[in-house]
């Protein structure tokens, strides 16, 4: 087994809805592990909490109370470890077990900021304390260790600054070289690595003169500038045409190999994720409902997949389906509203398999992630014991 770089455990992210006066459970129990040089895919319908999961790992959740539970173990680069330990220890009166081998808990101190009350259900969080603590830790990690490409391509580039300057700023996060020519050369090199073949010209452009495909490449180049150990790409292909989609995926793959980088790729489209990912996590209504390696998820044996994954995969047409002009399958029903207090399985209203004796269990108790084979887990009562 190769080395782990990141392990997210039992992430809980809640928001408070002022209007309805109740908590929204945006992410309820998400865990994922990423190994070095591995590509991990995170798929699920829009609104299931993928972006929130990514932002939590970056320490960038905007909204109260935000992250309320979980741990995020991460292995920093050798040269940043001291600074990270210092940031974790600073202001800690109690002793924490913030370390697991070479991995450090970036959510260290969270338990001190959050309190749960059972009846009525409330979460009390000290947002300032958390921001100070988590901010100090994440300042050491963002950029060189963990970085993210945002979902909303057009709005993720600074409209007031040229592409070149933005690249240079990103390069400076890695090596604070004062030599302008060297910085510019490195920026051009980065643009070439995302297959922009006229870097000198593009560097002088302002972002809103770029097409979406170009912006996405520039954003990837900027994210690669600091050579992060872990890159999270949120919907990197959404809004692109098919050719561009595959180019972007290829690019990510190439640069990952080259840069000794791990990648978490997020998409609502399992067809895109399966072309690149080694492991896939399927998310539904704030929960991981299944995870395993690509083979098990995409072409699993019949009756060895979560009903939701099965529906998700069969909604992507295969080449044969397109040739035969087969009708596309859709998943019936709608994504549940996260505000709903889900006692049982959240997929129940749309599930074809919840019949007979098992149905009562589906309605009253939430299934755990049951292990089917080593490394393949399914959150469904059909696979219990």
């Amino acid at each position, binding site marked *: 087994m190769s080395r782990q770089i990141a392990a997210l455990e039992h992430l809980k992210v809640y928001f408070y809805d002022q209007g309805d006066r109740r908590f929204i459970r945006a992410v309820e129990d998400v865990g994922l592990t990423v190994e070095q040089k591995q590509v991990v895919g995170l798929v699920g319908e829009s609104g299931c909490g993928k972006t929130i999961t990514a932002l939590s790992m*970056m320490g*960038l959740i*905007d909204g109260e109370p935000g992250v309320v539970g979980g741990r995020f173990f991460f292995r920093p680069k050798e040269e940043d470890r001291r600074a990270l330990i210092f940031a974790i220890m600073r202001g800690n009166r109690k002793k924490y077990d913030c370390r697991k081998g070479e991995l450090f808990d970036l959510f260290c101190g969270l338990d001190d900021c959050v309190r749960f009350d059972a009846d009525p259900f409330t979460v009390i969080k000290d*947002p*300032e304390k958390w*921001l*100070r603590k988590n*901010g100090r830790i994440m*300042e050491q*990690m*963002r*950029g*060189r260790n963990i*970085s*993210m490409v*945002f979902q*909303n391509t057009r*709005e*993720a*580039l*600074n*409209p*007031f*600054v040229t592409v070149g300057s933005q690249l240079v*700023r*990103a390069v400076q*996060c890695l090596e604070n070289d004062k030599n302008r020519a060297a910085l510019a050369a490195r920026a051009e090199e980065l643009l070439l690595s995302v297959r922009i073949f006229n870097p000198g010209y593009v560097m002088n452009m*302002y*972002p*809103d*003169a770029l097409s979406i495909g170009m912006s996405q490449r520039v*954003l990837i180049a*900027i*994210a690669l*500038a*600091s050579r992060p150990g872990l890159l999270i790409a949120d919907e990197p292909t959404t809004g692109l045409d098919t050719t561009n989609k595959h180019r972007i995926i290829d690019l990510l793959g190439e640069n990952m190999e080259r840069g000794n980088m791990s990648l978490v790729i997020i998409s609502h489209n399992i067809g895109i994720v399966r072309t690149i990912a080694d492991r896939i996590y399927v998310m539904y209504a704030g929960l991981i409902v299944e995870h395993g390696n690509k083979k098990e998820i995409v072409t699993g044996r019949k009756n060895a997949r979560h009903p939701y994954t099965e529906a998700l995969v069969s909604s992507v047409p295969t080449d044969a389906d397109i040739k035969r002009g087969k009708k596309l399958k859709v998943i019936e029903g709608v994504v549940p509203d996260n505000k709903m207090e889900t006692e049982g399985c959240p997929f129940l209203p749309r599930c074809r398999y919840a019949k007979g004796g098992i149905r009562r269990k589906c309605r009253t108790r939430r299934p755990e992630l049951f292990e089917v084979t080593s490394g393949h887990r399914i959150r469904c009562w059909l696979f219990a014991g």
Partner: protein
Amino acid sequence: MSRFLKVFSRELANALLLVIGVTAILYLSFNLMPGTFIGKGGGVEGYLNLLKRLFSFRFGVSPVSGRDIKSLVLPAFRNTLLLTFGSLFVSVLIAVPIGIFSAYRRFKSYSWALSIFSYIISSIPVFFLGYLVLYVVARYTGFLPVFSVSASARGMPFLSFVLPIVVLGLGNDSISEIVRLVGGELERVMSLDYVIAAKARGENMLQASVHEGIVIPLISIVFSKIPFIIGGAVVVEHVFNWPGMGRLAFQATLDRDLPVLIIIAFLSVLFVRTTTLLKDMILYSYRTSES
């Protein structure tokens, strides 16, 4: 670039129209006052005559004091500009750091004290603050006189020069407004996607949001504050004996020196409208740098 010229000429025409309109009103109202000046009582022809003199900057001689108006007004004008821009600079220097600090969410519980401080400073009337400062400096430092440029050779030239600027910088109400505007805008911009994206890459958030969050709001507020600061300057000029336009205008009013008054009014309008034009063009070129 040609679009810039088009917008510029349109704004310039607007500015000229305004200046002409204001001078026309000045002409009409000055006609009602006792005393005389160029073109008085001459109807439209007299007005045109006045305009010609104003725009060619041939102001003539004051019938009251017998002095050349240009040599009277221009130094005063320069002194007022110095006071205005100097005090704006002081306001910005104090307000911007407070605004930036208050925009950071992680410092919220410290920043309210600073905001309150900025409100208190801004709500003290300028004349009161002026006399207070004079009193304190004169009494506890012994640097005297602190209030006269002409006498400054004997006292503390630096003090008599800096004190009025600092007093006007603190006492005009722009500090709290700049704090509020810059703080609010910066906080908004700091939650925009591109700033969060920069933060996600480990870059400095302030650097990413400086254009939209600080420079643009600062330009618009600083320029729009200029007319009010000139108003405050009149008071400060009095308190500190600063030889500026305000004092000159006051003296001219007492003397019924209409030619001097009309030229002061003209120069003020011209100046205020020029700064507005400047502001519009700076903001315009900022916006178009995006495309």
